[in-house]
């Protein structure tokens, strides 16, 4: 049984925020402008992004609310109504509440009845994990369709008050993601029958390397003790004061995503799944323009590079929205970029959380 992406949608909250507007919105930490901001923004190349919080740090829309908007956008251009949806597969790195699962909250927000539910938890690759769960479910004939939604609301972690609550000076690793991540949601509709010009999912594969590498991106540890969980403190206030609730990136380890991203690509080539000369479009969720060049060069070095003009990304205008990025990219690609029946699309999501690399190949079809 074949599985097709027959519709897509996205939601980006509020107006596009340019580089000069970020700090006034997120706030000055201890009243002082950041010394790292310019350098990090220069390297990631992002020009505009969106936030679901305003300058008073009110949340303008919840994570589940954004996910629902993206899903509704996706359904509005599909052949299906909500009553016909049989499965919901949802991904986020952090829901609005700790429990229950994000999928349950999204289902209620969307008003979907009697569906099969899946929640996928992780960082950037969790959307492709959610997609794979839906894909295999359809592939085996268990369900005829599935709505797959990925959404992120990380800006709540970037409010100046969060850093101030964690005490004195900000370290680079704790500040880094403040200038990298932003909010948004993306949705895809999967069906076992094609509808007009759509994408057939050829395969989805991931390779995780958590056993060989330390944690690279995290929320829940204090900076000096990777063995203490935020839940080990006597009170959550103490966890926050100790910096255990800050989102951190171990920048020193980050370069590994380049090698591991290329490694997975080479594996898929040797398995015969990827034929580099047959790829017409590459949609790679690199977190930063800096890494795009590195991945591109290493693929060239291996002799299996893909021409620059085949690479598409909307990172620069939509921001890095974690697991939602690849869906938002796919949606914008589908609706704005030229693609022909028979074209092959390679999607890549090298995640730095603890190094899970996910890949997907699509073929443009028209029945």
């Amino acid at each position, binding site marked *: 049984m074949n599985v097709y992406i027959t519709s897509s949608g996205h939601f980006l909250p509020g107006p596009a925020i340019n580089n000069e507007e970020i700090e006034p919105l997120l706030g000055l930490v201890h009243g002082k402008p950041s010394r790292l901001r310019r350098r990090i923004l220069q390297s990631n190349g992002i020009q505009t992004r969106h936030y679901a919080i305003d300058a008073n740090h009110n949340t303008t829309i919840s994570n589940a609310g954004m996910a629902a908007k993206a899903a509704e956008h996706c359904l509005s251009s599909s052949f299906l109504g909500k009553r016909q949806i049989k499965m919901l597969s949802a991904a986020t790195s952090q829901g609005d509440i700790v429990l229950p699962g994000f999928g349950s909250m999204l289902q209620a927000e969307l008003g979907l009845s009697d569906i099969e539910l899946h929640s996928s938890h992780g960082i950037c690759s969790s959307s492709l994990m959610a997609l794979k769960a839906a894909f295999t479910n359809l592939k085996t004939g268990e369900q005829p369709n599935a709505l797959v939604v990925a959404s992120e609301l990380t800006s709540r972690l970037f409010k100046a008050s969060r850093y101030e609550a964690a005490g004195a000076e900000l370290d680079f690793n704790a500040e880094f993601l403040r200038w990298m991540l932003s909010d948004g949601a993306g949705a895809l509709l999967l069906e076992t029958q094609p509808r007009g010009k759509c994408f057939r999912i050829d395969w989805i594969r991931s390779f995780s*390397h958590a*056993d*060989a*590498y*330390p944690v690279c991106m995290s929320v829940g540890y204090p900076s000096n003790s*990777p063995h203490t969980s935020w839940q080990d403190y006597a009170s959550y206030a103490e966890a926050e004061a100790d910096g255990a609730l800050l989102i951190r990136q171990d920048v*020193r380890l980050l370069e*590994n995503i380049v*090698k*591991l991203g*290329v*490694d997975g690509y*080479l*594996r898929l*080539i*040797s398995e015969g799944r990827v034929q580099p000369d047959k790829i017409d479009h590459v949609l790679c969720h690199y977190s930063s323009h800096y890494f795009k060049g590195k991945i591109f*060069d*290493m693929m*060239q*070095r*291996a*002799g*299996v590079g893909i021409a620059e003009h085949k690479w598409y990304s909307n990172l620069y205008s939509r921001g890095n929205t974690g697991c939602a990025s690849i869906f938002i990219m796919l949606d914008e690609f589908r609706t704005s970029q030229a693609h022909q029946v028979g074209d092959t699309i390679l999607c890549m999501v090298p995640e730095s959380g603890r190094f899970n690399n996910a890949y997907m190949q699509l073929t443009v079809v028209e029945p």
Partner: protein
Amino acid sequence: MTEHVLNPHSQQCLQALMRVWFDFERQLGRVPLLQRLERGQFSKADYCQLLLNWRQQVIEGSRWISRCASSFDRDYSDVRSTIIGHAREEHRDYEMLERDYVAAGGNLADIQTAPRNIGTEALHGFLMYRASQPNPVDLVGAMWIIEGLGQKMADNWAAQIDRATGGDGSYTRFMRYHGANDDNHMQKLYQLLNRLCQSPAQLSAIVRTARVTAKLYCLQLEETEHDYSE
């Protein structure tokens, strides 16, 4: 970007060697001593133990390289020149390593009398055996691993060791030195690969030797913490 064009076999070989290297890095990531270094829970004593175990391999390293050079016949005299040059550059590196050991608080007599650990024994035995074969083309695979490791030491380990042990670089000179000439070394390695990998049989021999070298190198690092006196 590729600065020079590789022949099709060596290009494929390079691709396979990259995968062997990525896998090697993951194997290194599972070695307990290196996991502690990664977490910063690494003492000067750990570092001395590492150097103590490393010295034998560095000494033997120059020997297999020299043997390898002498096993190439006159059809490969250009290769011989390159490898002899490389061997001459590195054959006294162990003296720098010994100075680091002493600077880090170790006793010179201890490092000079330490036996090879069983990983070093296996690695050295394998490399000397391969180096003794006529025209040991496959050893470019071993060089790939060992050069790559030099780069990793210089780029990552030296700084991590200094950070974890409060050092100022004065006892990580050996590791840092390996990074200094790196681009040059890698460039020579690509040229060597292009020269030596000209057939599918050579390709698979090179990749196999790279795999074995990587596995035995890991064994050597794992054995660093093995105390046989127990």
